[in-house]
């Protein structure tokens, strides 16, 4: 189950909409072990592509280092699909390598509504989980 504040949920959706038709991506950091996302970090999609995303390696290093120094971890890793459903693709699954993270997929394929779903991914297995948005 992913519990997320309305504010962080809306920031993810806004980022995905702003970068459409390129895939948007980023992280929600939270205190290590808390499983609660607390801080929104939009990341650059170094691929700048409508069909692929990748965190810029230098930016990833700095963000991961900051989180480590603040005793935080990536609680949520999010990205958007701009023409397909908000479900992890084969590449999403094969590159998922933060075992404790919630993988949030957002789809901006429909102009009027944004799909927002969350998954756990580990050892090639995808499990969808419910999302609770806290006001």
């Amino acid at each position, binding site marked *: 189950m992913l519990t997320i504040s309305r504010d962080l949920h809306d920031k993810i959706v806004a980022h995905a909409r702003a970068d459409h038709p390129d895939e948007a991506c980023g992280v929600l950091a939270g205190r290590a072990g808390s499983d609660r996302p607390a801080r929104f970090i939009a990341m650059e999609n170094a*691929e700048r592509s409508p*069909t692929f995303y990748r965190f810029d*390696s230098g930016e990833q290093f700095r963000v991961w280092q900051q989180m480590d120094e603040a005793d935080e971890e990536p609680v949520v890793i999010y990205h958007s699909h701009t023409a397909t459903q908000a479900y992890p*693709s084969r590449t*999403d699954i094969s590159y998922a*390598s*933060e075992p404790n993270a919630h993988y949030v997929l957002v789809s901006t394929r429909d102009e009027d509504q944004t799909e927002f779903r969350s998954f756990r991914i580990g050892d090639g297995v995808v499990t969808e989980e419910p999302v609770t948005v806290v006001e």
Partner: protein
Amino acid sequence: MAIEVRIPTILRTYTDGAKQVEGSGATLDELFTDLEQRHGGLRERLVDAKGLRRFVNVYLNDEDVRFLSGLETPVKDGDTVTVLPAVAGGTR
């Protein structure tokens, strides 16, 4: 000689859970070979037949070694090597 190597969560199964290990070598290639002696299977997660694995980021201090000399990047006592799996994915 000691080079500190920071290990991401997903590779800590090779280090008995340690987030940091030590190794030695004159280049990254030698360092990874040295680590393999004590942490069997780790090298294969970092290196394939063509060199450094494409979706694994390796940094020497704070620089991505792709912009240095890849596996041939010289390393020395006191350096920190950090490994982070790339965060990536896409439509397919």
